[in-house]
């Protein structure tokens, strides 16, 4: 019984850690998803959903897109679609591109540093 409770507590703290990590990474993932070409909201959500454990609830992506738009990192335009309703496309602004470049650099350096720490542990 005690073991079960301890494992439940461990699961809860791991879930909490995952949630915090996901929150921090979602913006970076959203910006990267539209770095190569503009995408409409549904398509962004689909792409991010394909990344394991990144998007648990698809609706989370829309407030992020809205926040990125309000802070001037992305802009939108509407395009007619032959397969359904008109679609709102999101693309990076010049400022968004600069910020994304710096964010990716920071992510790479973090990733590298964590990798280094893990290697030290295995030595």
């Amino acid at each position, binding site marked *: 019984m005690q073991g079960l409770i301890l494992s439940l507590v461990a699961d809860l703290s791991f879930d909490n850690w995952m949630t915090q990590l996901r929150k921090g990474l979602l913006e970076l993932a959203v910006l990267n998803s539209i770095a190569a070409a503009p995408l409409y*909201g549904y398509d962004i959500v689909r792409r991010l959903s394909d990344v394991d454990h990144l998007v648990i609830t698809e609706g989370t992506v*829309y*407030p992020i897109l809205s926040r990125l738009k309000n802070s001037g990192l992305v802009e939108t335009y509407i395009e007619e679609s032959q397969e359904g*309703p008109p679609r709102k496309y999101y693309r990076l602004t010049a400022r968004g591109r600069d910020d994304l470049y710096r964010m990716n650099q920071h992510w790479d350096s973090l990733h590298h540093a964590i990798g280094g720490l893990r290697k030290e542990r295995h030595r």
Partner: protein
Amino acid sequence: MNDMTPAARERLDNYLQRMRSELRGTRAEVADEVEQSVREHIEIALAEAQAPIGTTEVIAILDRLGPPERWLADEERPMWRRALDRVRSGSEDGRLAYLSFGLFVASIVLLPMFGFLLLIPAMFVGRAWIELARDRGEPLGARRWLVYPALAVVLAFATGLLILAPPLGALAFALGGDVEPLLDIPTTRAGEFRFLAGLNGVLFGSWWMIAAAFCAAFLRPIRFVFSPMLDGLQRKHFAVLAAIGALVAAAGATLIYYRH
């Protein structure tokens, strides 16, 4: 939106209603943008389904979108909604601050119906929260403003009562009924004024000296009850009150002595 069964339509409408309710209070452009994007998302997701669209398809899409309550980061949610959530699901001691504020508001609303009696529990619930936060070494943060109103009003009321009530009672006793004939009050207008001013001075001044001595003797309990507002209270403050009382009483006695 797409052709769907009444049950599916109802399900979708309920969801959109829930979403609007959750987005209420965020900046208007965020709420509009998110609502518009989510509607577009649902339309695109349903575009390939066969009409009429049933509840199964709608539920599958809504489940993937997830509960709107989980979409916004905490800092994006309006303050009143965060406060409501903390009251609903916060830790027990965290709720005390909100309970204190609720009792304070209720005491104001119910003022004509002895609502002021609620101020006392509001103050003590607020004090309990402050002590719990201190025990844990947590800063009081912005939530202190939820408990300060009750503390401030009770403190102001208690101070007024302490400073004014006993001498006013004594004055009413002295000037009423059987005592007044014994006081040798002058019959001239100027003399009567000097006597009354002097009597006020003696009563208030004497009482302030007594009250200062009493409060100085019970400094720690007083500081504790009204902490953190009276954390800086020291005996020297009561010494000042006693000195003022002595001056006022002396001036009053002089006026009474020279009343004729």
